[in-house]
């Protein structure tokens, strides 16, 4: 599977490694802007923080 990127103003095609190609196939049809990616990571951070805090929060009366 190939992908493209602008390198020094030229559009370059490159072959994806099997792992990244699988990820692209799994995400087929999806695209994300930079802002969407930042929001996605922030959501994951919040979930992770809440999961970590859960034992403490549940132990409180």
């Amino acid at each position, binding site marked *: 599977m190939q992908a493209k990127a*602008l390198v020094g103003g030229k559009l370059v095609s490159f072959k994806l490694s099997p792992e990244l190609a*699988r990820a692209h196939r799994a995400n087929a049809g999806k*695209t994300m802007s*930079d802002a969407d*990616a*930042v929001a996605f*990571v922030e959501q*994951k*951070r919040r979930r*992770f923080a809440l999961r970590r805090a859960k034992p403490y929060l549940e132990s409180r009366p």
Partner: protein
Amino acid sequence: MKVVLDTCVLKLATLPNPVNPAALIVELCLAGAIQAWASPAMVEEYQEVLADHPDLLQRVVSRLELCYPLTELAVIRHEPDNRFLECALAVPAEYLLTVNTANGHFDRPDYQGVLVLSPGRFLHLPEVQGLVQRQFPA
């Protein structure tokens, strides 16, 4: 060349966007053309964000150079972003690659010699263009 990848760059690499500089940067890391550094805290976040792609996560983690920052920073207002800066300064990395340059995030172009660049701008660097040509000859 030593770089630190913000997690959003890894997320963008997994998406079939028509033009995908993040994917090319990840490929350069996987090929060993550039050295990506990470701290244990960063790896934890990578695991969280790439949980849907365990084989990619494993491959990325296997190529990472690990560093253990001794200093906890509070330079960036958005606290979790400091983990990436701690790693970049401890290495020291030449570049911190992110798309998150909003106020309160990586809003400076340079942190004590660590240049903050977007994936697109990173691929414009002449030395990176050379690496791409060697790794992916036309």
